[in-house]
């Protein structure tokens, strides 16, 4: 098969240009992106859309397979230092109108990228805007892992959607979502993302894109045509297995964490009953009054520290786990899509093999299909590595944070008990000297 040598790979359009340009631009200067990227604003969406259907617009890409490799390495170095796009979500506000009640969040952007007209933006977006963005990203970057959004409906109406806690948890998740997109070497250059961050009137833009959406729907159908994969490459099979086990472990950790929160809450209830017993005892004692009050106060302090710990656990620990469960789902979706692309390619290849006796040259659409599969694999692998890296950092941070919270809890209790020791002892010395 001639197409199996990756060197002859024509890259599949502007997306790959972005791919390649970004790390370079990140390394040298942000202000000199490839001309293609510079003026994509109007057309890029369309170009991207055409990609999954295998109709590359721009085949004359400067990319070669070696730069594909480079790309992977450069992406890994991206973290931190070379960031040129900063996004934060904060300041949730409740809007009440006759029609509906909803929350908007302030999305603030700071960037040096030339794709943006201004260096700073500050706009208000609501959940459904985020939802729209994610959908768009999924459509236009089918080969990439799109970070998850917080779940739309939470616990079947048990949770008050407008409560401060709920909004704060959601704000954090939305913030995380945008940051993950902003840090992604490909997704962060997506035009929809740009619009989301900068457009004053997002709804007008949304309506514009509606026609394209329906077109897209059909193309997806085409890809999804039932075909049984001959064999997944080992590394992707391993990814799938990994995700299965990881999901399971995360589920267990989540259950344990919830159980700990439950036990701690019950422990707190008992402590809150235990402490006051000392102070009611103090009520009918003479010289023991002070020590008893001391112990009572100390137990109350410890209970306070425990309450904080439990709150931190349920506010910070559990949502991160939840996000990762959703993240895994996104990853699985991408893996599935990859399988589909491979299936399409295999299907075409089989058809060709069937007609092989006719000795016709390998049809171009088969080659394109192979290109797409290869490209998908490369993107996926890059995203996978990036995801693994993120995951490692996130969990390192999460778990050391949890350890810190526990250490702080014990330190607070320790300080509380230490502080009453003099109270317990001093008086004893006094009574000793009194009696002697």
């Amino acid at each position, binding site marked *: 098969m001639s197409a199996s040598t990756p060197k002859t790979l024509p890259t599949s359009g502007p997306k790959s240009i972005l791919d390649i340009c970004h790390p370079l631009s990140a390394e040298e200067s942000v202000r000199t992106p490839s001309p293609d990227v510079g003026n994509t604003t109007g057309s890029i969406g369309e170009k991207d859309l055409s990609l999954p259907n295998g109709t590359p617009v721009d085949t004359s890409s400067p990319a070669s397979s070696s730069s594909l490799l480079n790309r992977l390495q450069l992406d890994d170095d991206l973290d931190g230092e070379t960031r040129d796009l900063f996004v934060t979500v904060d300041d949730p506000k409740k809007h009440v109108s006759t029609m509906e009640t909803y929350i908007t969040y302030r999305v603030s952007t700071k960037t040096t990228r030339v794709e943006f007209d201004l260096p700073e933006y500050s706009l208000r977006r609501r959940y459904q805007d985020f939802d729209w963005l994610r959908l768009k990203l999924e459509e236009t970057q089918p080969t990439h892992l799109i970070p998850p959004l917080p779940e739309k409906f939470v616990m079947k109406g048990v949770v008050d959607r407008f409560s401060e806690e709920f909004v704060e948890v959601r704000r954090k998740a939305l913030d995380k979502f945008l940051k993950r997109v902003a840090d992604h070497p490909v997704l962060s250059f997506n035009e929809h993302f740009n619009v989301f961050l900068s457009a004053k009137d997002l709804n007008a833009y949304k309506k514009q894109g509606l026609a394209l959406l329906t077109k897209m729907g059909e193309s997806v159908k085409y890809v999804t045509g039932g075909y049984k994969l001959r064999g997944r490459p080992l590394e992707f099979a391993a990814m799938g297995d990994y995700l299965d086990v990881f999901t399971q472990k995360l589920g267990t*950790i989540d259950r344990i964490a919830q159980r700990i929160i439950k*036990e701690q809450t*019950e422990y707190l209830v008992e402590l809150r009953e235990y402490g006051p017993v000392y102070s009611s005892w103090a009520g009918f004692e003479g010289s023991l009054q002070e020590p008893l009050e001391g112990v009572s106060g100390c137990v109350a302090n410890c209970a306070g520290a425990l309450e904080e710990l439990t709150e931190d656990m349920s506010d910070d620990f559990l949502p991160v786990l939840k996000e990762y469960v959703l993240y895994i789902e996104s990853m699985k979706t991408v893996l599935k899509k990859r399988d589909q692309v491979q299936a399409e390619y295999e299907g075409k290849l089989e058809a060709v093999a069937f007609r092989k006796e006719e000795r016709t040259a390998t049809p171009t659409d088969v080659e394109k299909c192979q290109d797409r599969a290869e490209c998908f694999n490369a993107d996926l692998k890059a995203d996978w590595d990036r995801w693994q890296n993120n995951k490692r950092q996130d969990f390192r941070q999460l778990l050391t944070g949890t350890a810190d919270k*526990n250490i702080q809890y014990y330190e607070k209790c320790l300080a509380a008990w230490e502080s009453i020791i003099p109270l317990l002892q001093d008086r004893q010395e006094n009574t000793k000297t009194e009696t002697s």
Partner: protein
Amino acid sequence: MADAEREDAAETDTPNASDTQEKNTNITIQRISFNAQFWKQMAEDGSTLLKRMEITVAEAEKRTGKKAVNMQETYTVYLLETRPSAAVNEGQSVAPDALWRRYSEFELLRNYLLVTYPFIVVPPLPEKRAEFVWHKLSADNMDPDFVERRRVGLENFLLRVASHPVMSSDGIFYHFLTQERGWKEVVYETGFQAKAESRLRALNATFRVKNPDKRFMEMKHYSDELQSITSQLLRARARVADRLYGVYKVHGNYGRVFSEWSAIEKEMGDGLQSAGHHMDAYAASIDDILEEEEHYADQIKEYLFFSEALRAVCRKHELSQYELETESLDLASKKQQRDELATGTMRTFSFKGMTTKLFGQETADQREARLKLLEEQIVEGEETVREKTTECEEHVCSGWVDIQRFKEQKDRDLREAFINYAFMQMSMCRKGIQMWTNAKECFSKM
């Protein structure tokens, strides 16, 4: 650490801790060294038995004996060791006099003391069966931890009696400590049981005292409050312990899941695996923590039982006061009868008055005889009232002295118990900090 704080206590001569407690945990040693110092001081304060003799309950042993026909019974015996203090202080190593006693014999001794010294707040024995335990703790009487805690409690009881200004010179008590054989017979010979039974009956009957001693009333009220608050505290503590146990043990599940998770990770694997071990250790650490905390519970429990002893002293005071009042009343009515008989007037309606009316005046002889009898009874009654009055005054006097002694002891003991408890909590916090720091180190290496 708690040990550091207690160092001065440990530095001074601690005869009790010298040879018996080598293998015990820190906290027990600390407790015992505190005990030793405390008792030593007590011994110096008065000329008690403890000044002359060192007393330990050195060990416990399980025995099986025949109870009735073919009936096996298993019981625990405790080894009492006594040594002359003089020899110990001079640094000589004297082989102790040792003998075995059963819990029931301790009970007998205490009952004897209760009856013999009604005005003394007799120290309680450790509980017969474990009470106020959190669910994981064994309530089995043969459980080694329970037996060990009871050994400490029994020793504590003996030391308290031996350091008591009055009870320490009791002959029966001395006999209990020094001679294994024949002790029970000697106790029964005192006839304290008969006295105990009549006392018990009298105490159980409801009676109202007309002129109660206000101080004793207050003390009785206090003992009720103390009893209710300590049992409330013990119950609450047991529940807290239960929950704390749950919190720690659930963390142990992290140990397993981290280890399983580490199997599918590359760079994170090692960190996760060892963090899992720390979580296991964290979960396991609660067993020792709560076992130590039981000692605190035992100290509070002792005062729960003490409250009953305090109440008993007050009740006994009430009883003797009541007896005095009935005797006085009786005497007063006899005197009245005599006066009536002497003057021939009848101020009150009585059955006797009725009979006189119905059957006519009695003869002068008869009157004379009745008057004489009444006079005799009055003399007798006056004697009894006098006796009862002294008894009652004595009870008030010595009872109050002992109650004051008890109060001081209680304040000192409980304060010490709270300090120990605080140290225990601090050591638990330090352990927690240590373990989470270890885990954090592993996490940060991921």
